[in-house]
């Protein structure tokens, strides 16, 4: 692994996004989305856990996100990841998709504020980034009757009713809170794991 170091450090002073960085962003996007989808599909069977997905996805996916932004170290990595996420997961409802992209832009701005050096900012940016997990649910907040009709068709009446019962006015705030808490736990895990494994191997 140590041998590869001269190959994978593109030079942290190099500001321009090279093809190699684009490849990293796209590939991490694939990993992120596969892990996210597996988590959502496994949890989605049970209504209450479905509501809680921002928490779990935040915990599991934080490591992947952190590794991606730490590896690329330039403007654009979080944005590309966010756009891939938005297009694949929340394209059902257009405003939700734009909100997801907005979350990615904000995360990118947080990284920019830390000048792609500050470790704290890398961690904080995931708190913002993980807000995009709320976006697939915007359909449920703003377009409720359609969502319920869809859930009835998809999973049957009981499932739809139990989701509807949970989806009251405070749900958006609850889920934003969950996303933040999940991201926080995830970030703590991620920084420990990155310190334990990836820094030693000279990957980031």
């Amino acid at each position, binding site marked *: 692994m140590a041998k590869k170091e001269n190959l994978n450090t593109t030079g942290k002073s190099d500001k321009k996004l090279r093809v190699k960085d*684009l*490849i990293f962003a*796209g*590939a991490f996007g694939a990993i992120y989305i596969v892990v996210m989808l597996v988590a959502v599909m496994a949890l989605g069977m049970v209504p209450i856990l479905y509501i809680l997905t921002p928490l779990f996805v935040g915990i599991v996916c934080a490591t992947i996100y952190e590794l991606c932004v730490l590896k690329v170290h330039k403007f654009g990595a979080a944005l590309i990841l966010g756009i891939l996420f938005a297009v694949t997961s929340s394209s059902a409802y257009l405003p939700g998709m734009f909100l997801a992209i907005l979350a990615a832009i904000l995360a990118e701005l947080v990284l920019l504020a830390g000048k792609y050096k500050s470790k704290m900012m890398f961690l904080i940016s995931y708190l913002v980034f993980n807000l995009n997990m709320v976006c697939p649910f915007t359909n449920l907040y703003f377009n409720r009757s359609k969502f319920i009709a869809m859930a009835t*068709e*998809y999973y*049957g009446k009981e499932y739809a009713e139990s989701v509807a019962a949970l989806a009251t006015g405070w749900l958006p705030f609850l889920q934003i809170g969950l996303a933040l808490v999940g991201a926080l736990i995830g970030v703590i895990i991620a920084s420990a794991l990155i310190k334990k494994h990836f820094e030693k191997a000279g990957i980031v």
Partner: protein
Amino acid sequence: MDLIFYGEDDNSLVKIDPRTKFLIFIGSGIMCFASYSDLGVIIYSVLLCIIFVLCGKKFTALKSALLLGVMLYLRMVLKNSQGAPSVILLLVTALSTVFMFGFPTVMSLLLIIKTTKISQFLAAFQAMHLPVKLIIPIAVFFRFLPTVAEEWNGVRKAMAFRGIIISPVQIICHPWRTIEYMLIPMLFSSISVMEELAAATMARGMDTDIKRSSYEKVKFSVVDYILVAILIGIIVFTTIIGHAAKGGLM
């Protein structure tokens, strides 16, 4: 590298443009979310199976068509039976629904992955004058999905040798350990694949700003125009039906 996994269309009957395949993929997304009628999904799935045959993947088409048939039968039986216990009913309904509505998306994704070379994909989108910064992540994204599955399988087998078996019980009892033992090796091996990919693209001169030429000929043929027309027709038709169904429900 398993060639079948990474896409070739040497024995296809007609060459379908990567852009059409991409449109099919987007269309399946719209289908699954905008319309929630069984009929639309079935029509779309059958169309996808036919496209698979046209692309020379007869066995994939046959397998998926059979699977779809079995699931449809199961759904029909479920809808008519009232006596079964509700928990099992709910679970099986949920499973069959996820399968049904996920089917077009997964199939169209497979279509892109299995029958498109990366060079074709890049050439087609470069012909549309899209910026390289947008094309490369998307191309890599599609190229990397099978790799993730492959690495995951590898890690799972390797960990099974050491007596670490991934199961729901394990995840609930030791969530921290599961993340560390499964995710970290997968990320490690994925990163080395990424580095090889990056080196390969460097060797092909992707990093220059000069416009690249390509061996691959990309052109919208008659088949593509017909497919796009059928596609738009189906989507418009089913979304209208979907909304009509919703109107009836309210």
